[in-house]
């Protein structure tokens, strides 16, 4: 079969172009997955952009292997810093168990460096600057590590798009994200982000040996005007120990007019 007669120059140009296309395609496929992964993560992260500040009550239920439960009650104030190269500021105040009532933790999150953290001990009325390299340690005895609990800043990870699959009634993009910061307890995480509201629905955590350690499920998303989604139920299951922790968020408040001065070390001792 004879091809349509094309001038030789055009034919050569086409073959060259096709070759060039193939040449660019091969590495671009991997690069594409990273780029696509980042874009999906960024879209999710940026869906939250501009909330400025929030306050929420958090009820934690810690469950051991035998199903025995203990609870924690705390409140969290967050100040958004819009610059993606700077982390948010947060202030956590405990009210239960009663013996740690008034204990408060102030964090100035960084992207790759350890966060700045101060702890207030009400019995001594003492504010202590504490080391925050302990990213992988348990947060108040729960299955959440400090690194799971602090703000999920976009640039803390590198991303790779894996595939798209159904997640409940929604469709999710599945990403692999790898911590860029030091002292992480994870080699990688797999995150499911829905394609409708761009919210994280599930995260799998892989330990330093690369084995599946924990699964986090995020549920009960509610939309706060004008456009901020918040999950009200986070369940973390540790597959290796059989322990689990549920986080139940309630009474979200936005637009509190909080500023930097509400997130300084001097503010820690007047939280109750």
């Amino acid at each position, binding site marked *: 079969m004879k091809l349509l007669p094309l001038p030789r120059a055009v034919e050569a140009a086409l073959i060259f172009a096709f070759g060039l296309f193939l040449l660019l395609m091969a590495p671009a496929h991997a690069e594409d997955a990273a780029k696509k992964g980042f874009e999906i993560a960024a879209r999710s992260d940026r869906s939250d952009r501009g909330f400025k500040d929030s*306050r929420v*009550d*958090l*009820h934690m239920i*810690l469950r*051991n292997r035998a199903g025995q439960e*203990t*609870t924690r*009650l*705390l*409140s969290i104030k967050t100040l958004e810093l819009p610059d993606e190269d700077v982390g948010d500021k947060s202030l956590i*105040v405990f*009210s*239960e*168990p*009663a*013996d*740690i*009532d*008034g204990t408060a933790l102030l964090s100035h999150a960084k992207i790759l460096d*350890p966060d*700045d953290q101060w702890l207030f001990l009400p019995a*001594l*009325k*003492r*504010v*202590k*600057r*504490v*080391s925050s*390299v*302990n990213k*992988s*340690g*348990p947060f*108040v*005895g729960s299955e959440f590590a400090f690194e799971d609990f602090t703000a999920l800043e976009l640039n803390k990870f590198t991303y790779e798009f894996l595939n798209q699959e159904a997640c409940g009634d929604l469709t999710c993009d599945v990403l692999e994200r790898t911590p860029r910061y030091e002292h992480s307890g994870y080699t990688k995480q797999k995150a499911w982000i829905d394609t409708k509201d761009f919210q994280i629905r599930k995260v799998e955590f892989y330990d330093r040996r690369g084995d599946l350690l924990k699964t986090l499920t995020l549920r009960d998303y509610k939309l706060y005007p004008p456009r901020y989604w918040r999950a009200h139920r986070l369940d973390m299951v540790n597959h290796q120990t059989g322990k689990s922790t549920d986080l*139940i*968020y*309630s*009474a979200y*408040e936005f637009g509190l007019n909080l500023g930097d*001065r509400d997130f*300084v*070390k*001097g*503010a820690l001792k*007047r939280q*109750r």
Partner: protein
Amino acid sequence: MPFDCPPIPSAAAGRPSSATLRAMTLTLVMAVAPAAATFFRRDRAKQTPAGQDDSPLAFIAAGFVFGIVLGLAVLLFEVLFITPAAADEKARPWDDVRISGFAATEIRWFPEAPAHGGQYAGAEPSLVINPEFRWRSQDRRHRVAFVPFARLAGRDAERTHADIREAYHLYLGDEVEILTGFNKVFWGVTESRHLVDIVNQTDLVEDTDDEDKLGQPMINIATQQDWGRLGLFILPGFRERTFAGDTGRLRAALPVDEDAAEYEAGLGRANVDLALRYTHVIGDVDLGLSLFRGTARDPRLVATGLGTLAPFYDTITQGGLDVQYTTDAWLWKFEGIAREGQGKSFLATVFGFEYTLYQIAGTDADLGLLAEYQYDGRDPADGAGVLADDDVFLGTRLTLNDVQDSQALAGVVIDRDDGTLFFSVEMSRRLGTDWKAELEARMLTNVDSENGAYAFRRDSFINFRLSRYF
């Protein structure tokens, strides 16, 4: 919304009645504890008829009345809290009243026979109550706190005492914060000694670690700016240090007669002390500067010639500096003071580090390693002896990071001059949700007869405390 509003609907529904119950329990305890204290006092007076001063009795009686009045006030609040339940939930200003605190039973055991005549041997049981009442206005600009404290001790009458740890009003303005009333403040960064911390008087009969403090009347005006936080403390009303009584352990060979206290300041206890405090965070460095002018918190003890010691409180000027540099898992700490007015002028310092090994041996536990050096340049001839004159502190802190918040701190202070050793262990663990068990052991060994701690050479002790938090 305050944190005392539980997020679980069922819990919220159950709250008013449990709050009432708590208030009633508190009223009862607050009324009973001082009453029992009074009873104990009377009992003691019978055994030791010699010169029992009755002013603590008056204080306890006042505490008794205060407890009842306060309890009633709280009950009134609770009644108001329940009655308009149908009204708009968000409109009630008393939503923000919180009651918390603890009651504890304690036993302190001295295994060794006492060194001085009249001191008890064996164990002393105690009851401690420390409720907290906190309120804040809806706009969060006004806070009121009331935290009374009382200990009922079984053997040493001077350890039976009551105090107002906090009773203040705090106004939070945009540029300025003004606190008026009794409060406790802490300054400093080190662990083995609290050198720059000078605002509050030490409640020495509580513990020997300088961490229990008496409430200090103050007007504190502070401002937070981009260049740091600056605070002025006006401190009217001096609080005298508490000392163990005749029968008590952990005292000098002669007991201290607190009523014989003398002051360099002409106004005595009515002298108004002043302090300035500046703190700032510059990257990884936390900086604190302080200046104090007024009556020293640590008195010199002077023999009266009547078989007792009298505290003498000098008027001093003290400058202080505290710095912490935080990097990786290291905390580098420094505290230093310069003091003038208490005998010869002198410098004192404590500095060192805390390094933490996280998740040791694949567990969730953290192990902290601490080392600090203590120097104090005051002239022992000036009579204000300190133990930390040239000593090294080595310690370790174990935090299990478990559900019960189990932790332990063990350390030793070594006197570099005479080899006196002071060991200390503190352990604590939550039991269930509302209980906490604490064990504390302090042991002096190899005590040199020239060491300031020689009088306490047989006062090693073990203290066990069981607390119920509410």
